[in-house]
C-alpha cells in the first residue's frame, strides 16, 4: 500500500458527489467569512497560513507520493524574503508576496532537481538535509539577522487601496490568498496532470513504461508545492510582521507533516482540518506547562499506528458508498 492511496480514491469518490460537495463548500465559505466576528482574526489568519502550507505539502505526499521532510525551507525562506523586501526595500505587500513565492519556487526547483534523483525514503532524507542547509544559511546570512529574525515588518497597503493594518482587511486578504492557493491545488489534482501524478504515486515504473517522463512531472509538482508553501510563509510574515528562525527549523517541517497526517493525507480538506487542530492545540498548550513537542510526538505516534487515514480520510471512509 502506498501512502494515502486509499484515502485519495475515497476522496475522489467524495469529490464526485456533486451537489453535496457544492453545499459543503458554500457552508465552509460562509463559516470562513463569518469567523472573524467570533474568533480572534490573528488566530484565524495563523490557521489559514498553516492550512495553505499543509495543503501545499499534501499536494506532494497525498497526490504524488513524495514525502518532503524539508518544506520548512520554503515556508520560512519565503517569510524572510517577504519580510526583507517589504521592510528593507519598501516594496508593497503584493510584490513582497510575489517575490517570496518566486524565490520559494526557485528553491523548489533546485531542491527538486537534486532530491528527485532518489526515491522513497532517500527523498525524505535529502529534502531534510537540504532544508537544514537553509536553516544554517538563515542563521548566518546578514540579512536574516540570526536569532532575532526580521522584526517589525510593516503590513502596508495592498494594491495601494486596502490598509492591511485593519484586522478585518488583513483577514479577508489572507482568506483570499488561501482560497486562491486551495483552488489552484484543487484544479491541479483534478487535471490530467494530477491524474498522471497519481499514476506515478501508485506505480512509477508503469507510468514510465506508458511513456510519461515521471521526473518532469514530479519536478513540476515539487516546484508548485514549494511555491505555494512560500506564499503561505510570506503571508505569515506579513500577518505577524515577523520572519524568524522558527519557520525554517526541521520541527516546522515535521509539524506540517503532522497537520497533513492528522487531517488525512490525500484528501483535499484534511490538511485544513489538521492545521486548524494543531494550531489550536499549540495555542492551548502554550498556556499550560505541558511540553509541546512531547504532545505533538504522541499524536504523531498514535496517528501512524492506528489512525493512518486521518480525520477527513476516516470520515470519507465511513460515509455510505453511493454510486459513482
Amino acid at each position, binding site marked *: 500500500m502506498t501512502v494515502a492511496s486509499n484515502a485519495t480514491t475515497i476522496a475522489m469518490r467524495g469529490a464526485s458527489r456533486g451537489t453535496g460537495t457544492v453545499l459543503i463548500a458554500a457552508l465552509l465559505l460562509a463559516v470562513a467569512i463569518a469567523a472573524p466576528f467570533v474568533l480572534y482574526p490573528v488566530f484565524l489568519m495563523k490557521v489559514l497560513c498553516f492550512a495553505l502550507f499543509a495543503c501545499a505539502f499534501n499536494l506532494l505526499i497525498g497526490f504524488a507520493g513524495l514525502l518532503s521532510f524539508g518544506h520548512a525551507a520554503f515556508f520560512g525562506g519565503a517569510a524572510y524574503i517577504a519580510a526583507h523586501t517589504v521592510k528593507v526595500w519598501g516594496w508593497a505587500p503584493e510584490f513582497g508576496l510575489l517575490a517570496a513565492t518566486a524565490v520559494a519556487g526557485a528553491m523548489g526547483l533546485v531542491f527538486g532537481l537534486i532530491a528527485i534523483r532518489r526515491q522513497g525514503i532517500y527523498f525524505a532524507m535529502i529534502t531534510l538535509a537540504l532544508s537544514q542547509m537553509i536553516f544554517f544559511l538563515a542563521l548566518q546570512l546578514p540579512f536574516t539577522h540570526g536569532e532575532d529574525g526580521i522584526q517589525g515588518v510593516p503590513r502596508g497597503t495592498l494594491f495601494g487601496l486596502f490598509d492591511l493594518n485593519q484586522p478585518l482587511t488583513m483577514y479577508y486578504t489572507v482568506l483570499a490568498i488561501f482560497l486562491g492557493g486551495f483552488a489552484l491545488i484543487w484544479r491541479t489534482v483534478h487535471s490530467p496532470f494530477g491524474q498522471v501524478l497519481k499514476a506515478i504515486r501508485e506505480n512509477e515504473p508503469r507510468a514510465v513504461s506508458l511513456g510519461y517522463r515521471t521526473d518532469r512531472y514530479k519536478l513540476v509538482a515539487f516546484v508548485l508545492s514549494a511555491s505555494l508553501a512560500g506564499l503561505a510563509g510570506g503571508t505569515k510574515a506579513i500577518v505577524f510582521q515577523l520572519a524568524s528562525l522558527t519557520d525554517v527549523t526541521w520541527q516546522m517541517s515535521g509539524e506540517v507533516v503532522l497537520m497533513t497526517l492528522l487531517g488525512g493525507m490525500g484528501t483535499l480538506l484534511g490538511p485544513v482540518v489538521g492545521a486548524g487542530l494543531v494550531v489550536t492545540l499549540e495555542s492551548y498548550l502554550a498556556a499550560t506547562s505541558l511540553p509541546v513537542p512531547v504532545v505533538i*510526538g504522541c499524536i504523531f505516534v498514535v496517528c501512524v499506528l492506528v489512525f493512518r487515514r486521518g480525520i477527513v480520510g476516516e470520515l470519507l471512509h465511513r460515509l455510505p458508498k453511493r454510486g459513482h
Partner: protein
Amino acid sequence: MFSLLGVPPQVLFGQLLLGLINGSFYALLSLGLAVIFGMLNVINFAHGALYMVGAFVAWLLLTYLGLGYWWALVLAPLAVGLLGIALEKSMLSRLYKLDHLYGLLLTFGLALILEGAFRHQYGVSGQPYPIPAALQGGQNLGFMFLPNYRAWVVVASLTICFGTWFAIERTKLGAYLRAATENPTLVQAFGINVPVMVSLTYGFGVALAGLAGVLAAPIYQVSPLMGTNLIIIVFAVVVIGGMGSILGAIVTGLGLGLLEGLTKVFYPEASNIVVFVVMAIVLLIKPAGLFGRER
C-alpha cells in the same frame, strides 16, 4: 613557529582531530542506521534521540548512582538497546507491511517525545560530564597536543566499527543477518526466528547510538538537543555513502568529519553546510551514493 598553508599547525591538526572525532560519531551512527535499514527497511529518525539518551544515561548513572564512565560504557548501550527492543516490539513491528515512510514518521514522533521529555526535565543547557581519570591528560606530539580522551574516542569507535563490520561480513550470525536482509521468508523457512532477529538488530543498532552517546558525553556537554542536529548530518552522510555497504558507511563518516574539520580551518562560515553541499554534488554526479547500489 612554522605554519602550514598559512595556518598554524596547532589549529590545523586540532581541527582535524576534532573532525576525526565528529567523523567517528558519524560513522558509528550511520553504521547503526545502515544495519537497521538493511534489516527493517526503516530509517530510524529516533537514532539521534537515542544517542542523546545514551549520553544522559551515563550522566544519570554518575549523578545519582555514582557509577563512573566505564560502567556507563556497558550499561548505557544496554539500556538504550533494551529501550529500542521495547519500541520495536510494541510499535515498529506493526508497520513492516506498510509503506516505509510510516516507519520514518513513527520514529520521528518518538524522537520528538524523547527529546521533548528530556528538554522538559533538564532544560536546554548542557550538563558537564567529566573525563574518566585514566584518560585525563594528553601527549605532546611535537606538532600538536593530543588529549588522551580524544585519542581513545577515535580508537574505540574505529574498533567498534570494524568489529561490527567483521561480525556482519565474516561470522555465521552475520551471514544469517545478511540472508534475512535479502529474503526474510526463506530464512524463516530454514527455521531461524526472523522476528526475534529483527528486534535484536534494532536493539543492536540503537545500542551503537547509545554507545556513541557515552563516548560523546565528556567531549560535548550532555544536552537534550545533542542528538537531533547530529542525526540530520548523519542522514546526509548516509545519502552520500549509500546504505549498501557497511565499510562505505564507516569510510564516508570519517571522511566527511575530516572534511568538516578542514572547512572549519580554511572557511569557517561554510563548516555547517559543507556536508550538505557535498551531498548535493554527489547526488548530481552519482545518485546512488559513493558506495551504494541502485535499487
